[in-house]
Every structure is written in structure tokens, then in C-alpha cells.
């Protein structure tokens, strides 16, 4: 193992011209082959997760809609998140993993951010289809009011390990919440902490928080968004990424997403997972 920050450097390997790999492909190649490979994150309910051999979630359904619209078979490439989005784009879109060099044609759930796009010029981020926010799911009976995170000086709060929410809680109020934070190794573990009553609240994205509320059937839950001093973004649009030479594929898939948003299919899809759909705020 090399240090965590070293791994961002692997991005540079391709710049040194060593990126012979399974190619992410332009539109006509995808259509000709009859197959589209779509990357989604693992352990990322309600967007994407594996239930045994079955792939589930909102992003998985969106992938199926791509297949239906283009008339191609969908292959789901489901992997965990790496250190940051730059690593994810490298591994899943333009270079592939170290051993098998496998990439997808398109990656879902990519933050649409000019800085990220500028840093990763071998990928193109496009087609915003959802708006992400941070939120808490809280147990109404235990915490009838949560005006600030100060509420968690003395009440245990759950979060998925090594996520944006974890970084916020670990540094909030100069570390004063240290003794209250319970970290789940995976999002599923963090969900269990809340469902089982080990914590009074869980910090995640708003959609995740809403989904956790649907899982905790024994708890009276509500979603709150207290101020998060020091947080870098209050919300951000989510789109797709394709390889830099496959822009036409991005346009075609963007059209599918726009249609789903316009005809209300997207809203219904999110609602079927207990999540309120938010249009991207650009």
C-alpha cells in the first residue's frame, strides 16, 4: 500500500501514454455491438447496490432506460468508490483498473463541477439529471428539534466511514463531536446503526437519508437540514461521464435523461424508492 494521497498520481500514468485498455466507445460502436456498459457505485442505496446477484437502485433503473432507448443490452459494472472522483473517472472511464483494465462506456452519479471537469480532461462530465444535498435523518421521538449539529454533543450520530459527511462530523466544532460519531464501515452498516437504534440520527445525502427513513420502519423519522458550517457545497448537480472521444454517446444519453425528466418518469422513479426528486440546479 502506498499512501492515500499518492493514488491521485496514478492519474498521470495515462498522460505518460500507457493507456492501452478496453476502450470506452463512441455511440456508433456501442450501437453496432448491441451492448452498453454502465458504471454504478456499489453499496450506494438508494442509487445502486447489489442484492445477491441482482443490481438494484435508481441509477440501475436509469441504466435500463438507456438500454431500452438505444435498443442495446445493458452490462452493469458495479465497483466501490476510490479515494475521490478523479480516481473513479480514471478507473471506470478512461484508463481502467490496474489488473484487468476494464472500463465502462458511461458512469452515472458524477458531480457536475467545472473544477472537476477541468482536472480530468480525459473524461467529459455532462447531462445533469439530479440535485444532491446533504441531510440528516433523525428519530423524531428522541430528537424533536435539531436546530444545529450542537444537538449531537451528547446524542450519538451515525455516518458512513470516510465520506463527505464523516469529514464534516470529524472536524465540526473543532472536533467536539468526536465522542458522538459512530461510523459504519459501509453505507449498509451505517444504515443498520440507525435502523437498530444505535444512533439518534444519520448524516448522508438527502436522498440516502430519505431512503434510510423508509428502512427504519420502527422509528418515527424525519429529514432535517441544519446549517453545516465549513461545508464546501450545500448542493451540487449530478450527471454522467463518458470518455473524451465519446461525446456523441453523452449527447444521446443526455437526451434520454431529458426526456425522462420532462415526461415525469424520473420523478416517479425516485418516488418509487421513497426519494423526492430534485431537478438539477445549475
Amino acid at each position, binding site marked *: 500500500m502506498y499512501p492515500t494521497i499518492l493514488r491521485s498520481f496514478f492519474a498521470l500514468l495515462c498522460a505518460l501514454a500507457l493507456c492501452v485498455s478496453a476502450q470506452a466507445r463512441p455511440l456508433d460502436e456501442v450501437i453496432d455491438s448491441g451492448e452498453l456498459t454502465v458504471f454504478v*457505485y456499489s453499496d450506494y442505496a438508494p442509487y445502486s447496490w447489489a442484492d445477491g446477484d441482482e443490481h438494484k437502485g435508481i441509477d440501475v433503473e436509469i441504466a435500463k432506460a438507456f438500454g431500452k432507448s438505444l435498443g442495446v443490452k445493458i452490462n452493469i459494472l458495479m465497483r466501490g468508490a476510490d479515494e475521490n472522483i478523479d480516481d473513479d473517472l480514471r478507473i471506470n472511464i478512461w484508463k481502467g483498473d490496474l489488473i484487468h483494465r476494464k472500463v465502462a462506456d458511461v458512469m452515472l452519479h458524477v458531480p457536475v463541477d467545472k473544477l472537476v471537469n477541468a482536472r480530468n480532461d480525459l473524461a467529459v462530465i455532462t447531462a445533469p439529471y439530479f440535485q444532491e444535498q446533504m441531510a440528516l435523518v433523525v428519530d423524531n421521538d428522541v430528537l424533536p428539534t435539531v436546530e444545529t449539529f450542537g444537538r449531537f454533543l451528547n446524542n450519538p450520530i451515525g455516518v458512513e466511514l470516510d465520506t463527505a459527511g464523516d469529514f464534516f462530523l470529524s472536524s465540526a466544532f473543532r472536533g467536539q463531536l468526536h465522542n458522538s460519531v459512530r461510523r459504519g464501515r459501509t453505507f449498509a452498516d451505517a444504515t443498520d446503526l440507525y435502523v437498530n437504534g444505535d444512533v439518534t440520527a444519520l448524516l448522508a445525502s438527502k436522498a440516502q437519508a430519505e431512503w434510510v427513513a423508509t428502512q427504519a420502519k420502527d422509528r418515527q423519522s424525519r429529514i432535517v437540514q441544519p446549517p453545516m458550517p465549513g461545508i464546501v457545497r450545500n448542493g451540487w448537480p449530478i450527471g454522467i461521464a463518458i470518455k473524451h472521444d465519446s461525446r456523441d454517446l453523452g449527447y444521446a444519453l443526455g437526451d434520454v435523461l431529458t426526456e425522462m425528466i420532462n415526461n415525469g418518469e424520473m420523478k416517479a422513479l425516485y418516488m418509487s424508492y421513497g426519494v423526492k426528486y430534485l431537478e438539477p440546479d445549475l
Partner: protein
Amino acid sequence: MLKKSFLLTAGSIALSAGLFSISVSADVGIDDIVADQASSDDIVSYGLGPRGQRFSPLSTINKSNVKNLFPVWSFSFGGEKQRGQESQPLIKDGVMYVTGSYSRMWAIDIATGEELWQYDARLPEGILPCCDVVNRGAAILGDKVFFGTLDAKIVALDAKTGNVVWRKTIGDFEAGYSYTAAPLIVPTEAHGPLILTGNSGGEFGIVGEVQARSPETGDIVWTRPVIEGHMGTLNGEESTMTGAKNESWPGDMWQNGGGAPWLGGTYDPDTKLAFFGTGNPAPWNSYLRPGDNKWTSARVAIDPENGEIVWGFQTTPHDGWDYDGVNEFVSFDMEKDGETIKAGATADRNGFFYVLDRTNGEFVSAAPFVQNISWAKGIDETGRPIFDDANRPGDPVESADGKKGKSIFAVPSFLGGKNWMPMAYSQQTEMFYIPSNEWGMDLWNEPVTYKKGAAYLGAGFTIKPIFDDYIGSLKAMDPATGEIRWEYKNKAPLWGGVLTTGGGLVFTGTPEGFLKAFDAETGEELWKFQTGTGIVSSPITWEQDGEQWVAIVTGWGGAVPLWGGEVAKVVSYLNQGGSVWAFKVPEQLANR
């Protein structure tokens, strides 16, 4: 020499006869491993002896005839998987056992350079090794050879055939665990020989651990987590807790503290202790985890009988620079002020060369082995760094206005004054030969990055050479005085191990592709050979049929080619390869 080695072999068979039934093949006994350094007709441990001194008493090749060292054969690792060869071969009974990148291993007939067998681990689809595809070597005992694979498994192969005898899991590759180090085999009274491994993984959420297994079955005998608060195990039951919960960690952060001992360990037959270095703490931002964060970025001495930590020494407490503490701890006896100290030395990522009392971990001395160290003003009399707070990376929260944060320049860079590549200690010159690099890093807070789809403040960095004309620096260090006796400067960063011999020589390889020999006393370059690709592995030497051989694995890669910025300029032109080269001095030239 032949007679002597025959007697050694006979002796060890006789010794083990009382304990085990004698097997017909030329087995490697645990006594052979313990005494590996003294016997020069074989290499049955990583480090040419479990202390890791990388000193061979062989003197047939010396300062005057090394110029006549010529290649005998070159063996290709073949296929497309050439990159990143960091392995040290083992030698037994005329056979070389060498591992390659992508979890492969070969047995080669040394007399002819022909392949006897090859083993390829089938690596699973879901595997995402955090770092690279390297392997650093194998271990050997009885009729089996052992090595770890990228999917965090340890495999025992039949040394004669390469067939799998057993295969066990060190960690879950899907959770980010991997394995690249050479396993360590140590003797114990209670369990017989044990095979020791650390673990490695790049994901936040791992806990560093040393595991001991039976070489016969691969079953775990004990485990020792290196992070405070975790329970060890012995014979399948909980043994003791490492340190005390929350003593040096806030909240529940000890549960995922990092500290992976990914480079493996060394063993000292004298004190009967195993020494493992531990990785840096998680998360990377040190402001999130106030405290010393034990035992990350440290050396721990473990009693192989029961897996208990006998002592620990933190080189970088509360690390904030990614200064892994994994570098090898080499046991040696040091004469100082008329006394013999049972010492051990380590050249840390953080740029300081430490001498400790290996019996109890007490600090003896520290001296910088690279120039312009900026993260600390020095090491105090207790061995603790005197931090320079101006050069600790800033807290990302302090720059939450969405702008690029304050930049600091820290020396060494997180790749270390010295990285994984092992140093050597000469019993002849009583000096350490340290493969080091002179570089620093700019560190700043990125205005925004995303992890698993969510925004946070990340860190940005770039590595910079300190000097215009070189980065790599092979140094001869006097451990008693902390004085640098000589230095060889290399344009590209050094990333290969060192070997020193009774012939008064020091060998090391360079990314430019040369295997070089130096005068151990003066640093004068006496010989070099171009292998055709970069060298990032550790050389060996042994005697066979009355002749002294030298071998090196070559194959550019590892972490080195991944650097950007100014460092890339000196390595970007280097070509791939993947092979073993074997050398000797032709008989007719040996005495010239």
C-alpha cells in the same frame, strides 16, 4: 567453501531429525533460515538472513576483479506483464525462486537459466489493488515456497512442481486489502516455525495487523493488530488488547486507524523478536485525529511465541505528511564508547536514520540522511520529533471559503527520504548503505473534491526535487556517529534495494537500468551493466559450484513512473522490461 556448506546442511538435517521425520528432498530447515547470512551457498530468506542486513560474507568477487563481472543468462518474465519488478530471488540447491509483478512466480535452473515451472495466480475480476502490481519476494521452508498475491492471499507451492499446497486469505480484496511483501519465517518454541505477514490496503477503514500461520497448513496461530484498542488472538481465542482503547485516538477512530504493516518484517535470532514497521494513520487529515495515534508510523517488536508487542517506537507520532513507518528495522551490534549495543537501525520515510536498542526499543540516536528536512527541526533526546508547525499541512476547514488553501513545502516528500527499498549493513565496514531520495512536496487544500458522489475539501500536492541535477542518493552512514561517509548521486530517484559483500563492495540498481558496484569504503563506482530497463529490486549474491554469482531482477515500474511534475521529466523516457539477470566472473578472469 563447498565442504563447509556440506557440513552445514548435514548439521541441520541431523538437528531436525529429532523433531520431524526426515524427508528425502533437500529441504530448507528453520535453522538454515536463522543461519542464512553465514551460509553463502543459498539464500533462503528475504534480506540475506532474517535480520535483513543484506550482507554476504562472500569475497571471491572483490574490488579488483568486479570489473570482470559478466552476465551468464537473462530470463524473461514474458507476456505483457513486464512492469514493476521489485522482487528479491531466493536460491536453494541450484534453483532460483523468483516472484514477478501480477502475482507470478518462477523456479529457474541456475546452471542453465531454464525455467523449471511457473505459477500464475488467477486474479479475480473485482480486484482493485490500491497501489501497484508489484511483489517483493517469496519465503521458503521444508519443501514449500510461499508468497502473497495481489488479492490478499498467501499461497504455499510445492518447491519441486509449483503446484498449490494451500492458499489462505490475509484480507478481503473487495474491502481494499492487497499483499505485496515477502513473508517472514521465524522459529518458535511453542509452535515450531511460523510464517509471518503484515497486511496492506489502501482504503480507509483497514486496521494494520501482523498474522502468524503454520507453514504446514496455513492456519492462523496468532494475530496482532497494531492499532490501540483492538484485540489480538492466540490459538483461536482472544489474547490481549493492543495498548488501551482511546489512549491516543479520539472517539471511535481507532476502529479504522490504518497503520498497515505492508512491507513485512525482520527477525533477530539473538533477542528472538520480530520487527514490523507500520503505515501512516487514517484519515489523512491529522486535525481530525488529535493524539499520537499509536501504533501508526512506528516500529513494533513482537514476540513470535504469542504475538505480544514487546515494545513500540513511533518515528512520526500524529503523522500529517503520509510518512509511513514501514521501512525495515535491521538488527546489528554497534560498538560505541567501548561498549557493544544490541542495536537496530531504520531509515525512515521522514528522513531520519534511527538507532534503537533492539532489546527494549529505547532511543539511542537519530541523524538526518537527506538534506533540508523541513517537517521537523530535529529529534529530541527521547526520540520524539521537534515538529515545525509551520510545515504541517493546513486544516482544510480553515480554508472553507472555496479558495485554494495555504501551501506548505515539506521535506521529504511523502514518498520518503527512503521508501520501501531495503538498505544494507556491512559487517566489514560497519556502515549502512541507504538508497535515499532528495525531494520535497508542496501541499495545499483543494477548493473542492468529491468522494462517492459528495463534495468535501481535499488536499492537493506536487513533488519537487530539491536539487537541479539529481534526486537519487546512495549514502554510506556511520551508525555510531550519524556521519555520512560518502554519497553517490543519481539523476533519477533510487527505488531499488542494496547489497554489500565481504569483497568490500556495494551493489544497487538504478531506474536508468544500470546495476552498479561501488567500493564500500570510498563510494567509488567500480562497475556497471546496462540491463535494458529500470531496476527497482534488490540484488543478491551466492556461491554455486565454487563460483560467486550475482543476480538482479529488472523491470521498470512500481510507484516511480507515476510521479508527475518535475520528477516525471527524469523518468518518462524509461522503457518497460521484466527479467532476471545472473552474473559471474568467468573463471579465467577471477584472479586478474
